[in-house]
């Protein structure tokens, strides 16, 4: 049963998974090049760290979109048929949802493995400064967790609200931005900082995105 659910999920998502995996694979190389403005240039440890501190969150952005896109793919076929087929199958609805969730979550591994391969490839080609270390495992695990978080939140939203999920998310983002802007202009910047900190710093729900995405660090 899970095998068939996974099979359908692979069939629906394979193009998206291929594109996302390709992006995840080349991303470490692009980051490295952006950090060093070239492959062969001499660089300092500080320069590398600053570069990754600024550009590393791009990995988090890609992780977010990996989760987001795979959820859209997971439910698209059922949504197109108004869930009639899924509901007519002799299986409790909660179990069906769990199987769909599990199959989609498993597919997150493909871009994650692609990222790990990309990281390992780039680390085998470049020399990092002596005082620094590479953290391919940590960055890859963080990528997987960020993608899983994004996938889970979007899956719940999509499940609860169907096609309205994207509108709800967009409204929430615009609302948070507008709220922060108004508070900031009104002189309550510290409130905005406190709220942002609560969301982005551990154990805040978005901490996995805001943590250090340092492929190379001390």
């Amino acid at each position, binding site marked *: 049963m899970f095998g068939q659910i996974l099979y359908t999920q692979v069939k629906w998502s394979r193009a998206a998974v291929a594109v996302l995996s390709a992006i995840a694979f080349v991303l470490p190389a692009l980051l490295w090049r952006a950090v060093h403005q070239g492959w062969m240039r001499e660089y300092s440890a500080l320069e590398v760290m600053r570069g990754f501190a600024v550009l590393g969150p791009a990995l988090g952005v890609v992780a977010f979109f990996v989760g987001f896109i795979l959820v859209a793919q997971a439910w698209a*076929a059922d949504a197109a*048929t108004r869930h009639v087929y899924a509901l*007519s*199958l*002799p299986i409790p609805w909660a179990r069906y949802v769990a199987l769909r969730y599990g199959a989609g979550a498993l597919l997150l591994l493909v871009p994650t493995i692609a990222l790990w391969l990309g990281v390992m490839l780039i680390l085998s080609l470049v020399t990092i400064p002596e005082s620094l270390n590479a953290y391919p495992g940590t960055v890859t695990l963080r990528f997987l967790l960020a993608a899983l978080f994004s996938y889970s939140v979007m899956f719940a939203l999509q499940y609860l609200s169907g096609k309205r999920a994207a509108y709800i998310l967009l409204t929430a983002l615009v609302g948070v931005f507008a709220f922060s802007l108004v508070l900031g202009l009104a002189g309550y910047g510290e409130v905005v900082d406190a709220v942002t900190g609560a969301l982005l710093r551990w154990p805040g729900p978005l901490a996995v995105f805001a943590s250090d995405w340092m492929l190379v660090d001390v």
Partner: protein
Amino acid sequence: MTDAIRIRHLAWRAGKEFAIRDLAMTVPAGAIYGFLGPNGSGKTTTIRLMLGMLPPQDGTIEVLGHSVPRFAHRALERIGYVPERLHLYQTLTVDESIRFHKAFHKDFDAAEAERLRARFGLREDQLVSRLSKGEAGKLMMLLALSQRAELLVLDEPTDGLDPVIRREVLGALVEYVDARKATVFISSHLVHEQERICDWVGVMDGGRLIAELPMQEFRSGIKRLRVAQAPAVRDAAPFALLSREPLSAQHEQWVVRGWQPEMREWFQRVGADVRDIQDLDLEESFVELLRGARTVTQETR
């Protein structure tokens, strides 16, 4: 168990306009039950309630002994369902659709599926999205029949199919019922199609079941009468008066349900006389039944 489907006091409402009201329905085990009604009368909604796809707001539903929606998944193990519109995944091929369906039905007969696939002329590698309406109908029927279901719930299974394909689909259905003695619940607005295969009939209109009776009774019990000196009062009549229209100063045309020849005496007792009795065909009976029910509804408002 004597009833395959048993519904009591079922109520469901969507918005202000449409509602299923106090629906009671009994489908005997082994029957081929024709579920008739005009478009928008609530047939598909009733089927979705029956299969647990919609939660009822009131009432009870039992399908094959299982309370629905709570144990819908257990009932669905024994039900083959063909919906009104194609519900299968568009990106799968015919073969993949069969394998997917098989994974969820433990009694699925793969050999029968293969036999029906060949009989219906479906190619294994055809994409579901590329199937014609007839081919899609055949694939859905193939899946339902290969499940070895005890109950087949078919929602307009032949709607829009050409006569050749309709005959193929109905032929496979009749063979299945003969071989397995399954119960069939078949919804349609094609009255003549139902007449050929059904032994029970339920008629739905405006979210209410306005009649449920054996097909034989439906076929022979509705008559058009020409009545002379027609009485004004109809409540005491031993039959159900579906409609009455004046033909002339002396005569009225009545359409009645539950007619028996000995009921002529009732007319004589009230000073009237039946001058002519006509049999209605099934389609006329269906139309008159709807007309009668709508007249009663308007009068009670």
